[in-house]
């Protein structure tokens, strides 16, 4: 029996038969449909995922004319901080534009959180100003809402992760509600400073990482940013496929936030005024790449069908069908791209 090379969700290589791959695709689709209460992919779409997974060639690409555009998270940090190349961040923006073929990039600080950036924003804006003078493509500023940073001892509010195990539910909820106010203020402040420095957009990255209060803070900040700076684009990137109910009762425009999957998350982002939504589908490291990819495409297709704003899918380490590993293999990454665009109808990555 012929076996095809593919991968597990942790990136390790594995050989699977056609029957095994098809079964994993089917089970991945069913898992997404069951969890999200969304339609399954059609038989033809599952066949096409099988075709993409088993295509010969190390990397694959979308059909001519189906290309999309990309945004990044901490894009200017990758060469400078992460790869430790002695390079100023606005220079890395130019490398991204002229050498790497990026459609855009975001400038971010090493401590990629709005709370941390607020303190040093006067040293961040000159980087944006210089980049804007020299760059042709859109340049955004990015950071994370990171609501957890507002808890004691680093922040002003009580730590709900300590209160919840003590069954202090009301206190934990009150602390999160207070943190929302601080986070919104910081995000709007930094957005205003970056707007004054010429930014094309603000990237609220990993919204909901601390749960539904984190997500609410991001929605409220989006609303205020668009109200104050209508020409500043807002990219609203999710933290996970499912908003954790750390608070549990928070609502936005009459919709309870906890428990929402991407196809419902996007409707809240639209209401808040976001220009681009970045849905996430998490990778299960103990399942195969075909399982993860089929599951991801099922969620993204459902999200795309209801979205009125462009979707830039998070396709990175451990999200978007990509294996959870430091150096994601390009065979898996490019297959995820092709499936997400051609079946999932993504507008960007």
């Amino acid at each position, binding site marked *: 029996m012929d076996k095809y090379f593919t991968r597990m969700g942790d990136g390790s290589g594995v050989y699977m038969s056609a029957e095994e791959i098809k079964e994993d695709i089917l089970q991945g689709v069913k898992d997404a449909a069951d969890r999200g209460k969304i339609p399954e992919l059609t038989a033809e779409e599952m066949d096409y995922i099988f075709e993409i997974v088993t295509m010969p060639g190390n990397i694959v690409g979308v059909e001519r004319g189906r290309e999309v555009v990309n945004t990044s998270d901490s894009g200017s940090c990758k060469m400078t901080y992460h790869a430790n190349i002695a390079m100023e961040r606005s220079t890395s923006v130019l490398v991204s534009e002229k050498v790497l073929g990026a*459609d855009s990039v975001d400038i971010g600080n090493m401590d990629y959180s709005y709370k941390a950036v607020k303190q040093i924003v006067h040293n961040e804006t000159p980087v944006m100003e210089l980049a804007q003078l020299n760059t042709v493509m859109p340049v955004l500023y990015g950071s994370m809402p990171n609501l957890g940073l507002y808890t004691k001892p680093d922040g002003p509010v009580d730590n709900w992760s300590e209160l919840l195990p003590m069954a202090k539910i009301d206190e934990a909820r009150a602390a999160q509600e207070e943190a929302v106010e601080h986070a919104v203020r910081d995000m709007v402040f930094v957005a205003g400073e970056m707007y004054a420095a010429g930014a094309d957009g603000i990237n609220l990255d990993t919204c909901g990482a601390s749960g539904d209060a984190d997500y609410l803070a991001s929605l409220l900040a989006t609303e205020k940013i668009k109200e104050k700076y209508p020409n500043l684009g807002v990219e609203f990137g999710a933290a996970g496929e499912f908003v954790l109910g750390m608070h549990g009762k928070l609502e936005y425009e009459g919709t309870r936030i906890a428990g929402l999957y991407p196809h419902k998350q996007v409707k809240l982002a639209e209401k808040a005024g976001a220009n681009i939504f970045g849905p996430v589908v998490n990778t299960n490291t103990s399942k195969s790449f075909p399982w993860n990819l089929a599951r991801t495409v099922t969620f993204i297709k459902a999200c795309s069908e209801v979205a009125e704003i462009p979707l830039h899918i998070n396709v990175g380490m451990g999200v978007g069908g990509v294996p959870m590993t430091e150096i994601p293999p390009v065979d898996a990454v490019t297959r995820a791209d092709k499936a997400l665009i051609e079946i999932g109808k993504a507008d960007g990555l």
Partner: protein
Amino acid sequence: MGDPFSLEVAHTLSSCMSGIRTAGDLVLRMQLAKSMRIDEAKKYVAEKLGVEPIDLSDSDRMFEIRKKLNLGRPFDLNRAPRGIEAKINIARVLGITINSVELFKEKTGF
């Protein structure tokens, strides 16, 4: 976070427009400015440039168009508009407001 070769480079080669080598930056501008989905954004930009949407991802075709309209390009930069200069032309051609262009005009007394 993440390895830019595995992610940004792979995405670009596999599935993305590749920025100012083609019209990727222009299409993204329409998404950021007007929340246009990909087909709508491509159609809008193509009409403004007088080409078909499929041409927008063709680096050979777009290099000539960008050169002719002074929209900025990655190479062959002798006497070519750079950075903010190119963006002034982009704002005019696409009919949109670009924040940095407005600030530049304000600071230079345009």
